[in-house]
């Protein structure tokens, strides 16, 4: 049976690059791309098909926020073959200041970055629990490790995702269902282009994707990519408040 991979938020740069690595083997593979915009999904699908003539790439429009349609779309996706690997990658790197001043925007940010990924994760978990196997990969963020003034709305959402994945890991411990949380550091994607104007050093999306694929292969439960962020975040998590509160980060 050929491998089946499902990617939610497939037009995100990190997801696209992961998919490129997964199809690059040239082996037959089935890959389902979910996202909000069919035209943009089509662009990714064409790219993946060009990279692997033996890949069966399907695209599907999916709502990110409506629980009923999330349930329906994942039920449909799971109706033929069970999924071997699901990657949940949607998100928006919100605007902290706007979130502070516009509660409507804040609400959408929290839903897009927290509620949406965990509902998708739960939908996949339902099916994986039945078949007793599968790998579920959720993209979190280093920003979820500690709330910071510069992006706590995004960070809080990612923190929720981390705690949710932790729960799923506990639930599936000892089974063949593997749940993995990826915490990328700041990555050079179209979503973060403006950060470079402030001289921020960003990891290349290619390297981050390589790190993710590797973490999935090894079966890590939590992976910081690039790896150095594990150390940086450990320090940041443990900084006492009297120091932390003086930092403008």
């Amino acid at each position, binding site marked *: 049976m050929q491998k089946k991979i499902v990617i939610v938020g497939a037009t995100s*740069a990190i997801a*696209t690059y992961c998919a490129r690595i997964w199809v690059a083997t*040239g082996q037959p593979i089935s890959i389902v791309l979910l996202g909000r915009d069919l*035209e*943009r999904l089509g*662009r*990714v699908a*064409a*790219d993946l*098909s*060009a*990279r692997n*003539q033996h890949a069966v790439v399907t695209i599907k429009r999916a709502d990110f926020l409506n629980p009923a349609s999330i349930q329906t779309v994942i039920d449909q996706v799971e109706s033929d073959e069970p999924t071997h690997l699901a990657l949940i990658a949607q998100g928006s790197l919100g605007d902290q200041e706007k979130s502070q001043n516009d509660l409507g925007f804040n609400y959408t940010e929290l839903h897009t970055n927290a509620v949406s990924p965990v509902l998708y994760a739960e939908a996949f978990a339902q099916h994986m629990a039945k078949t007793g196997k599968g790998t579920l990969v959720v993209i979190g963020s280093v920003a979820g490790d500690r709330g910071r003034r510069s992006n706590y709305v995004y960070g809080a959402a990612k923190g929720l995702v981390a705690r949710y994945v932790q729960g799923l890991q506990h639930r599936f411990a000892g089974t063949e269902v593997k749940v993995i949380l990826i915490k990328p550091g700041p990555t050079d*994607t*179209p979503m973060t*282009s403006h950060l*470079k*104007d402030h001289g921020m050093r960003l990891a290349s999306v290619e390297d981050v994707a390589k790190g993710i694929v590797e973490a999935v292969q090894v079966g890590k439960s939590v992976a910081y990519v690039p790896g150095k962020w594990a150390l940086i975040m450990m320090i940041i998590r443990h900084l006492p408040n009297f120091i932390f509160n003086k930092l403008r980060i």
Partner: protein
Amino acid sequence: MRSVRSWGRLGEAKHRVVALSNAKENALRHVLAESLPGLAYGNGRSYGDACLNPNGNLWQSRDLDHFVAFDPENGCLVCEPGVLLKDIMELTVPLGWMLPVTPGTQMITVAGAVANDVHGKNHHVYGSFGDHVERIRLLRTDGEIIECGPTVRSDWFAATLGGVGLTGFIVQVTLRLRRVPSAWLEVESKPYFDLSEFFALSDKAEPDWENTVSWIDCLGGGSGRGIFMQANFATVEGDTVPSTQLARKPKKIPFVPPVSFINRWSLKPFNNIYFWLNRQKKERILSHYQPFFYPLDNLHDWNKLYGPSGFYQYQSVIPREVGQEATSEMLREIRQSDQGSFLSVLKTFGDRRSVGMLSFPEPGVTLALDFPNRGKVTLDLFERLDSIVRQARGRLYLAKDARMPRDLFQAGYPRLVEFIKYRDPGISSAMSRRLID
């Protein structure tokens, strides 16, 4: 605003970088219209100022890096402008296809290769990059889409090939790849001790060898000694190839040294050692295409070796009739000025005329030299080299240039008058302001 440098690192300039990520033409149309005048920017490998637009907009195309289609039956590839040549090679070589023309680095974008109509070591057989482009989809800043190719709106095609990005924003390119029997080449190296020997070797090699190139030691020998290389693709079985050449981890230059590593004290010994080492090499080796075509790609940011002042590259092409004489004169000037170059390449072009109005390759001999930027002395040397090029009716390569005077540009590129009609008024670059506007 962000500081952007070109490959020569001659200086940095502030740019408003507009990262393009939405490939929909309507979205691109809108973004371009909001950021005029601007200039497409790929992977920043142009040496001089062709890819810069100081204090203006740069439309960064690196995220437009999706393949649109690839047909492994006929080698036809359609892709977005920001796809790197490296991506194309990695996809197609295992399937027995390859870019017919590739320059000395694969770290450039497809649109950059089109806009500079780049060439490689096989010019006498395959011409330049543009000879294998079937279609260009061009978005003008007024919103018009122009589809052009060798037989469709060929005037637009000729203007855009080698047009250094000035005719519009390239949104899609269709290429015709070539078949290769393997990823390996049979390479023969032969030392030469003066220029007439080089020309004799070139003439002899061209009918039988697809790739010819030479490294020249511009400081040694009577009139330039060097190592001449000729190579053909080899038919090899998968497991007989030496794996030592593959999967070498790329090395990085971790910092910019305070002074150029390449200077008058290091250069002569460098060149001597390089010449000597290569002379000792076996005359015939099997080489993977990567080290053969892209000897420097494994050393990331090698341009930093030239220190904080950066470097110039001076690449000329001289008609064959006066090629030997002019090259020899140029080498003499370089030796006399006590400046020199480590990465010096001497190569003959074939008889094929380039399609592009501002394409660089023309029948003759091309000499490419890197010079650490030493300010006035370096620029003075260039002026003397310019006069040799001017007199020999040659031209300089726009992709490398940061300083040629207008009159030399006009003399070297007689089709400029024709080209002007195809300029996009919404596009401007440091180079266009220096040489055209």
